[in-house]
């Protein structure tokens, strides 16, 4: 802010810039250099308004609902139950099973997607024939519909007429009987994890590929002259260079892993006997099948807390003190 007394004593100042109330109001509004302080906020306002309407409001509302035995009828009274919904979740065996299943899915899919995505990205970063074709090919699963591929996997792994059993049992003969892949907990989770990896590798590949292309070629050349082989060049040149990207991909995949929903919902429906329930399918069932919106919201916030904490921990422990600078 300009010092109004000094401005008033400056005889060279144009008359309209003097200490008139209008001028000082204008200075207060637009700042010393006539920087329009409000202008950026005006531009941000529409976006923020939409964000507040479709994101902030539902989040705050869901948080409120999680402390109530919520009645969906607007005219009916909802009962404030403090932390009862959260306590209920912590004593609910299916909630814990859902958490373990979600974590298992995350552990099975995240490292696999990172490793495979990185390998494919490194391969596709080299000069090779039909490179664009392969890039498109690996990315194709990412843009396919979750619903379509989930149903496809359901049929592939069906116990009687499924393609996988047909190949493994009737074809190759590795199995002596058909396996009910989707009817027991771990085989069903394995199928869903395979789907998650198949669908997700393309995404991590494309991010890694973009990062690898920013690694200066001269560093690779210098390392090669120093006698470093391909693996050592990757280990000591490429990997440090793409470390922030690796961290980003890890954080995003962990968040995505904890949000597994469509594949479980469509392939197993959480069954049999709630064995393959994950947190989001369990939350959905509580809210929309049983109309227990309070409990559903509390599960959603517990999941948010877990994901938030994990993301912070990853950022804290995986971030390297010195980052590569090209």
């Amino acid at each position, binding site marked *: 802010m300009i010092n109004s007394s000094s401005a008033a004593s400056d005889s060279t100042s144009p008359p309209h810039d003097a200490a008139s109330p209008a001028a000082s109001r204008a200075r207060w509004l637009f700042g010393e250099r006539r920087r329009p302080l409000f202008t950026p906020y005006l531009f941000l306002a529409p976006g923020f308004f939409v964000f507040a309407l479709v994101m902030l409001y539902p989040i705050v509302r869901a948080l409120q609902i999680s402390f109530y035995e919520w009645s969906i009828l607007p005219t009916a009274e909802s009962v404030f139950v403090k932390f009862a919904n959260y306590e209920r979740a912590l004593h609910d065996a299916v909630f814990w099973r859902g958490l373990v299943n979600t974590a298992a899915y995350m552990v099975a899919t995240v490292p696999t997607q990172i490793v495979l995505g990185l390998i494919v990205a490194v391969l596709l970063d080299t000069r090779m024939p039909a490179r664009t074709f392969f890039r498109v090919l690996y990315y194709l699963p990412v843009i396919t519909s979750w619903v379509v591929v989930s149903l496809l996997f359901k049929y592939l792994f069906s116990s009687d007429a499924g393609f996988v059993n047909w190949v493994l049992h009737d074809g190759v003969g590795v199995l002596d009987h*058909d396996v009910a892949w989707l009817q027991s907990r771990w085989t069903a989770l394995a199928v869903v994890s395979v789907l998650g990896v198949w669908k997700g590798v393309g995404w991590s590949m494309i991010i890694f590929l973009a990062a690898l292309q920013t690694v200066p070629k001269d560093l690779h050349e210098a390392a090669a002259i120093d006698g470093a082989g391909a693996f050592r060049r990757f280990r000591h040149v490429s990997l440090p260079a793409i470390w922030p990207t690796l961290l980003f991909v890890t954080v995003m995949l962990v968040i995505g892993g904890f949000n597994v929903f469509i594949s479980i919902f469509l392939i197993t429906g959480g069954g*049999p006997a709630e064995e393959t329930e994950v947190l989001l399918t369990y939350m959905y*069932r509580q809210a929309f099948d*049983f*109309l227990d919106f309070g409990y559903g919201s509390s599960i959603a916030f517990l999941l948010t807390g877990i994901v938030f904490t994990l993301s912070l921990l990853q950022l804290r422990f995986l971030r390297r003190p010195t980052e590569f600078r090209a």
Partner: protein
Amino acid sequence: MRYRTLLFIPLLVSLAVAAGAQGSIRPASPARPQATTTITFWHAYSSDSPEVKTINNVLLPRFHRLYPRIRVRAVAVPYDSLHQKLITATAGGTLPDVVRSDIIWVPELAKLGVLVPLDRQMRDFKKLAKLTFPGALSTNKWNGRYYGLPLDTNTRVQMYNQDALAAAGIQQPPKTFAALRTMAARLKAKDIYAFADGGTSGWSVLPWIWSAGGRLTNASLTKATGQLNSAASVRGVQLLVDLHRQGAARFGNVDGGLATSDGLAQGKFATILDGPWMFPIFQGQYPNFRLRTARVPSGPGGSISVVGGEDIVMTTSSKNKGQAASFIRFMLSRFAQLEMAKVGQMTIRTDLKKQMVKIRPYYGIFLEQLATARARTPHPQWPRIDQTLESYVAKAVKGDLTVQEALMQAAREIDQLLVRR
């Protein structure tokens, strides 16, 4: 002064709008055509189904002739999204006047307070209720009041593949639990499952529990322990578990694989339980397969199946309850019930049994079975109760728990749910 004028403008506009609105419900003068009231009716018939054609081309024109001052706007909502749409409409206060609701949603909606108790609203309720099957009517009862009337009904009967039975030297479908047990081994020797079902929920398991003489809850719907884990209930589930252990029965949620209808038509399953809608499905998919039916195998409790179907309910938010009641009455009329029967909807009226069999001979076995069929527990917590039952019976089928343990644990959990009225 100018501000005052401005303040008056919205007031004047409101008055003008109100005057217009008043005009629409003012008694008609001889010079003007009579004003009509529109009521909205949500149903879940597929938008291109024969049922919708009958509603739009036969029933509604007839209703509009009978009640020229009432227009019905029939809205087809896909069945899979109707429940969610009802819930969001409840939250948003945008429910229609009349809904064709799945029978299992009525207590839940009644508990939410969005349904009008028809036994209070309609003076002729008792007369209408007397026309219907008791099992179908009971699905509308919650907390001592009736919140709807049955609209269409169905039940599950035994469907069997005669060729599959004959392959094992069996001439008749099993009439009793004992006959089913006996024929299971012979069919197994021919690589044929004696029985298959899609899952272990109440829709699948309750006919066996009831036919064995067991129950899910007591009559006042307050307790499951002592009922679901009784010797009789255990006997019903034990039959299914024993058959599964022998490799003579399959359950979709535990074993996966073929749909029951495919397995039956292909001769891999000898018997299944299913509803009247399967006839056109088999006819379309397996035109050479001759579907035969029999009653559900009898146990010590008799041959008791489960009631399915839909009820017709009126919402508390309806501003035209009198007109909605007229429409409900019309939908239960002989004319409407018989027209809908022609397109596959079984009537809920006991006095139309003969006409039903004339329309479709295969309705006969279902009407016979309906005489003793029972409704699933009419309780707002039914979806959770059903989930609990399904999970524990699945555990028993998989061998994780004995039937006694599974039903005991299920009963304890269901007790907790029954308390949450």
